[in-house]
C-alpha cells in the first residue's frame, strides 16, 4: 500500500508523519480503515465487573476471547470456550494451553492480541483519571456499540467539530468566539487539544449540571492509543464540571466496534444530578455518532478514486490516519516494537491535575 524507501535505523526513527505535504496528503488519502489490523496490543475487552465464573465471549478482529475467573479471582482469557469440544485449531496468539496474556487494570480486563512473548504490562495505556485497581460504581460504566469500523469511530472522536452538529442537543452547538486545535503525537499516540472561547453551554450541563451561564470556556482533549484503539476524552469546562471519559473502541470485527466506557464523575458533587446523568448520555450520544459512522463505514471498505476533502480543522484526523497507516506498514514488515512508552503517565499531556 505504501512504499518504504529506506530501512529505519535501529536507534533513531523518522517521525512517521512526513514533513512533505504531498506525501502526507497521499498517505491521508490512501486511508482504507477496513484493511487495518494492528496486533501486539492490549485491548480493554471487558469491564472487570462483567467477568465472573461463567465465561463471557469477546472478539478482536473476529478472533475469539473467552474470559472467566478462577476460584482465586484470577482472570483467564482463552481462545476456546471450556465446553467447546470441537474447537478449531489454535492460533499463534495463544500459548500451548490456548490462553492469551491477560491483565486487570483500571477496572478492565485487558487481553493481548499478538505474539504472546511480546506481551508486557508497560504496553497498557496510561489512563490518569481511572483508579488503577478499578472499583468505579456501576452507574459510571456502560457498554455501547458502533455499527462501523473502529478507526472510523476514533476518527469521529478526534474531530470534535462533529459534536457541535450531531450532539448539539447534549453538548451545545458550534456558536463560539474562537476555536483552536492543537495536535501532538508520537509513534503510538495522538493527542488533540481543542480550546473554545465563549462556547454555547452544553445543554446537559444547563439541565442537570446547574450551569446558569449562556457561554463557557472549554478545553477538550482526545488522546488515542493507536494500537489499543482506546481513547481518553477529557473535557474541562468553566463554569461546569470536568468530564473524565475513557472511550475504548475495540474492533470486534472490521465493521463493528464495542465501547465499554468508563465515565468517572466522582469529581462531581454527590448532590449534583450531573454526576449520575452524564455517564448515561453515552447511550444517546453513541447512537448519534453511529447515525453518521454507520453509513460512512461501507464507503471506506473499497479503494476510492475520489479523495476526501479536508479543512484546517482536520489536522488531528489526518495525522491519526497517517500514524495508523505507518504502524500497519511497520507491522507488515515484521516490526512490532513499541518505540514510545504508552504507559508513561500522560496527566501533563492531557492537562489533568487530579481534580
Amino acid at each position, binding site marked *: 500500500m505504501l512504499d518504504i524507501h529506506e530501512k529505519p535505523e535501529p536507534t533513531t526513527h523518522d517521525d512517521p508523519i512526513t514533513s512533505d505535504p504531498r506525501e502526507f496528503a497521499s498517505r491521508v488519502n490512501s486511508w482504507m480503515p477496513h484493511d487495518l489490523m494492528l496486533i501486539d496490543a492490549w485491548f480493554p475487552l471487558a469491564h472487570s465487573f462483567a467477568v465472573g465464573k461463567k465465561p463471557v465471549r469477546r472478539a478482536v478482529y473476529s478472533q475469539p476471547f473467552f474470559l472467566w475467573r478462577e476460584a482465586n479471582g484470577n482472570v483467564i482469557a482463552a481462545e476456546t470456550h471450556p465446553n467447546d469440544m470441537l474447537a478449531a485449531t489454535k492460533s499463534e496468539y495463544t500459548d500451548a494451553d490456548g490462553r492469551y496474556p491477560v491483565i486487570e487494570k483500571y477496572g478492565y480486563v485487558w487481553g493481548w492480541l499478538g505474539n504472546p512473548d511480546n506481551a508486557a504490562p508497560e504496553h497498557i495505556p496510561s489512563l490518569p483519571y481511572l483508579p488503577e485497581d478499578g472499583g468505579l460504581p456501576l452507574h459510571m460504566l456502560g457498554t455501547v456499540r458502533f455499527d462501523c469500523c473502529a478507526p472510523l469511530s476514533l*476518527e469521529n472522536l478526534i*474531530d470534535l*467539530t*462533529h459534536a*457541535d*452538529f*450531531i450532539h448539539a442537543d447534549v453538548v451545545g452547538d*458550534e456558536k463560539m468566539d*474562537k*476555536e483552536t486545535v492543537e495536535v501532538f503525537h508520537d509513534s503510538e499516540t495522538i493527542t488533540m487539544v481543542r480550546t473554545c472561547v465563549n462556547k454555547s453551554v452544553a445543554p446537559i450541563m444547563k439541565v442537570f449540571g446547574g450551569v446558569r451561564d449562556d457561554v463557557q470556556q472549554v478545553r477538550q482533549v482526545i488522546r488515542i492509543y493507536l494500537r489499543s484503539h482506546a481513547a481518553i476524552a477529557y473535557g474541562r469546562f468553566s463554569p461546569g464540571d470536568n468530564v473524565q471519559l475513557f472511550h475504548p473502541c475495540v474492533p470486534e470485527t472490521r465493521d463493528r466496534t464495542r465501547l465499554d466506557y468508563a465515565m468517572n464523575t466522582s469529581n462531581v458533587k454527590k448532590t449534583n444530578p450531573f454526576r449520575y446523568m452524564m455517564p448515561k448520555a453515552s447511550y444517546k450520544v453513541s447512537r448519534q455518532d453511529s*447515525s*453518521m459512522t454507520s*453509513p*460512512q463505514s461501507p*464507503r*471506506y471498505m473499497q479503494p476510492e478514486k*475520489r479523495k*476526501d*476533502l*479536508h*479543512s*484546517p*480543522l482536520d489536522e488531528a484526523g489526518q495525522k491519526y490516519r497517517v500514524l495508523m497507516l505507518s504502524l500497519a506498514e511497520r507491522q507488515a514488515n515484521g516490526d512490532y516494537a513499541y518505540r514510545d512508552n504508552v504507559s508513561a503517565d500522560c496527566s501533563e499531556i492531557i492537562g489533568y491535575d487530579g481534580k
Partner: protein
Amino acid sequence: MTEAVWWAVARSEEVSADKPLNVDLGDQPIVLWRDANGVVRALEDRCPHRRAPLSLGCILGSGAIQCGYHGWTYDGETGRLINIPNLKGERKYPPVYKAKPFGVHESGGFVRLCADVKAPPPADDGDALPLSGTATVALQHEQYVDALFDDPSLLISIKGVRFSPYLFAELTEQEGQLMLERSCQWASPHWPAPFSSEFPLSLRIASDAVTGETDLTLLDDEFNLLLHATLAPVPAARGVTQVRWRAVLSPERSGLQSKIMGVGTPLKVHENIDGAALRVLKPSASIHANDLREKIAARSAPQDEVA
C-alpha cells in the same frame, strides 16, 4: 445507465424545503430538496468531506444544504462548498471543493433527474395528475417492466377492472416506446375471459424503452377515456424498484361500472408482489421487449458516437 436519461425519482409533493429526501438511481444515492425559491436541487448523497449522507443534514434558510456531520454547507445548483461553520469568517473554497450535482427537471408533478447536468431538459408533461403515490417493490427494474407487459395484475389494480390474458395488440415499438394493448373485463360476474367474444375495456401500455416510464390508458369499447396514469419505475439500491405514479379518472364516465371507479382509490400500485405467481408467470407479451429495446438503442447509438 445512459448519461442523458431523465429518471422520475420523486413526486413533487415528496420534495420539500424542510427536510432533505434521499433517493437512488441504481446504486447511486442522491439527496433532493427545495431551495429558498422552491427550486428542486439534487446532489450526490455523499459529503465529500467524510462521505456522510447529506440527506442526514438540514436545509438552511438560504436554501443551501448543510451536512449533519461537521456542518459543511453546499450550494444546490453547483454543488460547491460555501461554508465550513467552524472556520470562522468568510472564506473562498477552491472549485474542487464540491459535491456532485445532478440535472433536475420538475414538471407534471414529477421530479426528474439526469446524471448529466448539461443535458437538454425533457419535454414538459403538462398539468400534474391529481392522484399520486409511491411504491417500493422488491423486484428488479427490468423484471418489473416485463411483468407489467405480461400480467399487470401482479403489480397494479384498477378498481372494478380485471385484466385478461388476451391482447388487442402485442408489444411493438412506436416512436421509441414499447406499446401494447390488453383486453380487460369488468370485475363483476361474467363469462370467463377464455370464452368471451367481446371485451368491454382496453388498457394501453406505452413504456419508454430505457426508463420503463409507462403511460396507462384505460378505454371503454366506445373509446371513451376512463383512466389515465403514469407509472415511473426507477432502479434503486439492492435491485429494489421505486415506483412513483400519478393518475386521473376521467370526469365523464357513463355506465354503472365506470361510475363505481370513482368510489375510493381507482388505481393501486402494489408494494408486495406474489412471488409464487410471478415465478410461474410465463413470458408472453414481454418476449420481444429486449429485441425491441436493442433495436431502439441501435438506432440512436450511431448519432451519439458522431456527437
